[in-house]
């Protein structure tokens, strides 16, 4: 097994984008579309093959690749465990869907758009594969460039403001993480995270370093009160951009907490639990209320994303098996559901050029197929049992209940609020009277759109009934993470006595 499969997965999209860049521009960019579809599908198969050959019973990292990189002291190290592989598959799964969805909706500069998406895929998979802090930072930050362009070039009327806000917020959070990474390097002599796990960072440094990492992840997550860039970015981004943003980019922060904050700074993680709980609760309740009042469909889904991410942070910081698994599950399922919801809104927008809830109503009478799928995802979004959305939230709440019952009770209110805004959205858009006569002239989904949404709906329902494949994959890694974490804490507190 000397074949560098991780590097292949990371750099294949980049190579594809170079081909697209070099290809001659055609009238409808046929070759660019085919090349990008081909590379992204090849990547999906590679990712599935990776899943297949992944040994679920090993605790450590697998498929490790190492090569000397910066002056010999920082290595370009890649590797995956049971948590990261799920995100790699999610990324590889979402990208072809985005490419298919944008072919019709992007009218201008399609070639450049496909290049941006493929480059972004490289960086996103790189984030989930890297086992070195500097490599991680490199990929984490590099993703800003294509996303900035996707929002700014192909976005809506307020795109400039949104793109700047997105870029500067994220950059501001991340530079503090860079300081922390360099501090860790000088403290431990390495940025290889498997070695840092062993070394144990002294307690007095953990708090500040944790906060520095937190500043970056909180912006990316996004957590209240630094979530304000997300609704703007979502509303202005083109559909494919919103899908990537909601489905994958937000997951980087949750993954960052699992991979970096908890194993590297266990004492600080335990210490800051009240902070996380408070912010998560505010995110769940407050943004759900805000989502209720939205008039723009994309904004509503964006705020619901913030609320869902609140469950993720809540679950991660319960440090229970259910909580952690629930969070990971929630991230994967939110990746599917929010992607589908944004695609649904995109389909409506392509026809009506309006995202306002008030311009719709009674869609079900003229777009029955679309309405069916839209309702499936709305129900999945509110966490109906039988969809993957239910299981994540449920496990998180079970985990939280073991640690702090009050928090669990408040968080459960969020579930009700979630049902409220989602169902109200369904009522106003899909059902009800036809207020706008234009709806009567709308055409139902074409084949591509139906295929895309069905492909997304299948795993949503499948994993709602049968979560075992995902759970099996992450089980050993989550156990390993938790037992190490508890061991660290026990060592720390017994030393104190």
């Amino acid at each position, binding site marked *: 097994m000397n074949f560098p499969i991780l590097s292949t997965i990371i750099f294949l999209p980049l190579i594809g984008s170079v081909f697209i860049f070099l290809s001659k521009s055609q009238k409808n960019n046929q070759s660019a579309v085919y090349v990008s579809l081909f590379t992204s599908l090849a990547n999906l198969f590679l990712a599935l093959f990776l899943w297949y050959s992944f040994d679920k019973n090993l605790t450590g990292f697998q498929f490790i690749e190492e090569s*000397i*990189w*910066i*002056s*010999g002291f920082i290595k370009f190290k890649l590797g995956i465990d049971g948590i990261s592989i799920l995100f790699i598959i999610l990324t590889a799964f979402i990208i072809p869907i985005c490419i298919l969805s944008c072919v019709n909706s992007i009218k201008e500069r399609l070639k*450049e758009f496909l290049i941006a998406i493929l480059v972004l895929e490289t960086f996103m998979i790189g984030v989930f594969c890297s086992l070195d802090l*500097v490599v991680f*930072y*490199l*990929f984490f*930050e*590099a993703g*800003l*460039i294509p996303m*900035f*362009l996707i929002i*700014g*070039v192909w976005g809506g009327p307020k*795109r*400039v403001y949104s*793109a*700047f806000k997105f*870029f*500067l917020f994220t*950059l*501001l959070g991340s*530079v*503090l993480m*860079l*300081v922390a990474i*360099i*501090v860790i*390097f*000088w403290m431990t002599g390495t940025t290889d995270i498997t070695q840092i796990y062993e070394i144990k960072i002294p307690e007095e440094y953990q708090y500040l370093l944790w906060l520095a990492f937190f500043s970056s992840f909180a912006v990316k997550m996004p957590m209240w009160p630094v979530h304000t860039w997300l609704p703007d970015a979502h509303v202005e981004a083109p559909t494919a951009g919103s899908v990537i943003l909601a489905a994958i980019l937000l997951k980087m922060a949750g993954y960052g907490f699992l991979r970096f904050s908890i194993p590297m700074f266990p004492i600080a993680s335990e210490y800051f639990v009240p902070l996380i709980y408070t912010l998560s609760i505010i995110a769940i309740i407050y943004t759900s209320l805000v989502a209720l009042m939205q008039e723009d469909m994309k904004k509503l889904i964006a705020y619901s994303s913030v609320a869902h991410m609140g469950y993720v942070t809540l679950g991660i910081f319960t440090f229970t098996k259910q909580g952690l698994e629930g969070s990971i599950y929630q991230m994967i399922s939110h990746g599917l559901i929010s992607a589908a919801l944004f695609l649904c809104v995109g389909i409506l927008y392509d026809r009506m050029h309006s995202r306002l809830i008030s311009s719709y109503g009674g869609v079900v009478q003229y777009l029955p197929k679309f309405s069916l799928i839209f309702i499936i995802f709305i129900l999945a979004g509110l966490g109906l049992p039988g969809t993957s959305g239910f299981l994540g939230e449920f496990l998180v709440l079970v985990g939280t209940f073991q640690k702090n019952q009050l928090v669990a009770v408040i968080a459960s209110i969020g579930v009700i609020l979630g049902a409220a805004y989602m169902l109200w959205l369904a009522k106003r858009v899909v059902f009800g009277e036809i207020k706008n006569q234009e709806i009567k002239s709308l055409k139902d989904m074409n084949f591509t759109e139906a295929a895309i949404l069905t492909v997304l709906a299948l795993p949503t329902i499948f994993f709602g009934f049968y979560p075992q494949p995902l759970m099996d994959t992450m089980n050993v890694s989550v156990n390993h993470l938790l037992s190490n974490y508890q061991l660290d804490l026990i060592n720390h507190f017994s030393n104190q006595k």
Partner: protein
Amino acid sequence: MINDLYILLPEIFLSLSIFSLLMIGVFVKESYDLVTKLSLLVMAITIYILLKDNSSSKIFLDSFIRDPFSNFVKILILVSSIFVLNSSQLFIKDNKLDKFEYPIIILLSILGMFFMVSSNDLILFYLGLELQSLSLYILSAIDRDNLRSTEAGIKYFVLSALSSGLLLYGCSLLYGFTGSTNFNIIANQLNKENIGAVFAMVFILVGLSFKISAVPFHMWTPDVYQGAPTSVTSFFAVAPKVAGLAVLIRFMSVPFENILQEWQTIIIFISIASMILGAVAAIGQNNIKRLMAYSSIGHIGYALAGVATGSISGFSNSIVYITIYVVMNIGAFGCIFMMKKEGKYSEEIKDLSGISKNQPILALALLIILFSLAGIPPLAGFFAKFYIFMSVIESEMYTLAVIGLLTTVISAFYYLRIIKIIYFDEIKIEFDKIKNLNITATVFLSCVILTTFFLYPSLLSGIVIKIFPF
């Protein structure tokens, strides 16, 4: 004695070539093209001579030093000048600046820089500095029918003369308090109790900060950058900065070695001030040359942050930084040379509006260069900053590191603004499609270096770390 001359061979060759070229220029009519080509040849040969001998030796009563450090800096100066001179050909001809003196003055200023970075003695240092500065005054006013250009020349001359005066005063104080002009003897004589010498250090630092346009001695930079012809500005932005920083590093590590704490405080202040001003003042600029001026002030701030650590790794990372800065600036000015509309060159940022639609390649080049200037990974600019902050944090200067990184966020804003204008805005002016191999090759090379740097980042720092300590 002959051996001494051999060590001085690059300088001797350069001066003899300058005089021969001058003669050619005087006696051959319409000789601009010939002289330029010969100058480029001279620079290439000088690089070859420099590469041949990389040993370390001092000659002429230890006043002149040739070591790997000075060799590296000289080669960097020459390579950047070759690219600048080459890519500015079209601009020079279009603006009727094609006088044969032009390349010769550039060579003269390079000769001055050579002596600067090789000096191990206050007198030689000052002579080299003045030779460089005098050539630069003339260069900035070379478009003598243009009001802006002459104004820039006069302004630069007056302010620079003042700073040279302060510098000279510092040198004389230093001589008075230590009894020697030789760097090594000064280093032995200096210690913290010698207040007079600390004063001298401050004056010298002021003079040097002026030359590399660090805040608060930066006032001339925006005006001169804007006023001087773009071809001259692009030279200003690279070669003198490299030479100035190299000389600063030599001063701090040889004569002022023992008063590290005294100069460290000052450099930290200058560095922070430059980073902040470079980031904030550039936001409101509409002229791209002015913007590049503020951006260069900011970048000098980062390079100085490396110097402020006072460690070998800090110095070498400063050199790495300035090298990458040079690559970015050569590319950026290459793009500015392409902002041409019906034979007239534009300097307004708003004229770049929407060029991504009909000149996608130029837009992409600017995108890469600007993101690299902003220090976003995986481009080379990120690694430059990464190295700097590695050494800053190694020296436990956390405040400097945090302020430095926060200013990168602010400065990211104005680079993003240009990208926004290029990519997001509607098209206003269609620039001519320039098919000039010199410019496109330069920009292309710069972009390739910036994008592929991440594959093997230790290549450059591996070379640079070997030139220390001197």
